[in-house]
């Protein structure tokens, strides 16, 4: 019985390694992906800590962004500010050093709720403004050729390239292929619906909301 259990555990571990390691395929560099720039300085490779000796963790503990970081992040990524951020700053955790003496970076219901509200306001405003801008000036899809505000006409490659661009813009990190394909599939459904209801701003606006409310935007 013990042997069977051990074999099962080993098999499971090997299966996990294979399933997690099977996606390391070299791929062509696409627009929006990160490329390393050689700065002439070659530091020694530092091995990461063994997660087994670190309670299953690697690196420092992730944190939620502070209100000041959120304010800057929204402005940097969309070019506009959420109108309520100062009104809700205390509720989102900003210390006033009178009543609250430390910045709260807890991820709780109130933060999640108001981040969602903020993302909706800012993203839909940005997407609406983008509809009337020429390609290079757009925030959410600067390199996309749009005909008659119809995003269902976009090719798969164009959608994926723009999603990759947005991932870098909002998160500072690229998509994995599988995740990008999944988001692209969602975008196609959303774009079709946006066309049906004649609200083209909701196509990339909805994706912007998804990027802004993703944990990769709200934590670091």
């Amino acid at each position, binding site marked *: 019985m013990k042997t069977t259990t051990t074999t099962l555990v080993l098999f499971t*571990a090997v299966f996990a390694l294979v399933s997690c390691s099977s996606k390391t395929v070299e791929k062509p560099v696409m627009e929006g992906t990160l490329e390393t720039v050689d700065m002439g300085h070659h530091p020694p490779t530092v091995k990461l800590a063994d997660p087994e000796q670190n309670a299953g963790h690697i690196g420092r503990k992730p944190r939620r962004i502070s209100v000041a970081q959120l304010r800057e992040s929204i402005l940097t990524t969309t070019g506009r500010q959420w109108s309520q951020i100062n009104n809700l700053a205390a509720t989102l955790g900003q210390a006033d050093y009178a009543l609250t003496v430390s910045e709260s970076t807890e991820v709780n*219901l109130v933060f999640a709720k108001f981040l969602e509200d903020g993302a909706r306001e800012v993203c839909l405003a940005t997407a609406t403004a983008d509809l009337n801008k020429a390609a290079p000036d757009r925030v959410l899809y600067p390199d996309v050729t749009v005909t008659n505000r119809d995003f269902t006409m976009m090719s798969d490659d164009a959608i994926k390239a723009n999603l990759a661009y947005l991932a870098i813009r909002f998160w500072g990190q690229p998509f994995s292929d599988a995740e990008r394909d999944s988001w692209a599939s969602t975008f196609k459904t959303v774009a079709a619906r946006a066309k049906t209801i004649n609200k083209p701003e909701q196509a990339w606006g909805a994706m912007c909301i998804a990027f802004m409310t993703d944990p990769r935007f709200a934590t670091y």
Partner: protein
Amino acid sequence: MSNHSGKSSLQRRTFLKAASAFAGTSIFGGVSFKAFAQQAQALAPADHCFVFAYFSGGWDQLLNLDPRDPTEFTPERISETRILPGYSLLSQDPSYPTMPIRPQGSNIAFGPAVGRFANHFDVMSVVRGINMNTVAHEVGFRYFLTGKEPNGSAARASSTATEVVGQLYPRMANKPPVPNLAFNIESYNDRYGGYANALRVSSANDLLLTLAPGPTALDSEIEKQLIDMRGQPVSCEAQLYDSRGLVTQYQDARKQVRTVLDATLDRYFRFDSTTGDPMAVAMEKSATVARYGLRVGNNGLPNDPRNSSAARAALVATALKKGVSQCVSINMAGGLDTHFGTQLTQANNQRQGWNALGDLISDFKESDHPSGGKWIDHVTILVFSEFSRTPLINAAGGRDHHITNSCAVVGKGVKHNHVFGASGNVGMSAGVVNYDTGLPDPKGFQYLPDHVVATIMASAGLDYSIMRVEPLKGLQG
């Protein structure tokens, strides 16, 4: 460098993926995130809830919790007693009694302004003769709010509500979405995580912002796509990034948002309208509106459904009963700093708050708590003000600040139909009582807000060591 870096990146990625296999269970690629993210808990009321009701400005305790018999404390004896009840000055309004009230069966005498609150003598203790050590508004207020004497005027500890939530919230199975709600009142947090921070609202509208969907809506089909996308599988890297649970915590918070929004809790707090409410909700709200005497259209009047003492009491009841909050701190009544006002002004402003509290307690007495018994068996209410007003009336017809205070503690954890302590019969000086009995004792000790707060915390089974005083045995239920 490119090659070196690329190799390093590949090694790191491979290592992360391999490491994720060691990181724990259920992290295989392709398994739905939903499989190991906690399900959002359905909203359920906390087993022990707390209300901190504040009367701002410094109340006249002769009119509420520490009355005196005007036939004994007459104007002729002022030089001897230094106390003038002044109840005859309320005679312009015949609804005010001119003698202290003692409902049948009550061991507690009340002043003329307590209104319907006096009907609930059977579930409360009154503490008299508390030494506030201050006659400054912000100092006294913060002292009672935190149970610690401020440094200058700066609060020196967490609010009691924060302390309660800080200790109880991590152990709760059903975590309320807004555990600590502070309505038009300060709140402090000096040693707990953000989960214990109060959601500070200055009006019911602020609370509705949290409970209602945002003003910018997406098409419902697109909305559904976004929700579905959030439940998709995540990569090995993402799983490892979440090994300390922050992302899961965030996802849980978002699920909780969805639970709150789906429950359309905001409807229950919109006392001024039933438009669009389902029949059951409309009926429940109508019952609340009737119980608290709210009248739609009475803007700015005592029964204003949006911002009156009555509406605040209704808000407290709704927040606790719907499982939105565990602790609610609320500014119940104001306009009490009557240096130049009349006795009638003080009494009118107080009575709004007391009547609203009386209705709240009636509601708690009559409503069943989901875990058994009535709500009053599951809630503790502290009613306080920053200090009291002088026992003598000043030259302007008002009363100034007085250092001796009183408070009421209602519900779970304290003795019922009971008076702890007493103020002096000369100038209402701070009481000196026996520690165990609470009866006046010249060899006893003076008690402070610290003792009252420590008693409330001890009665709830919480750690009160931060108070650095022992609870009042003669007050504990």
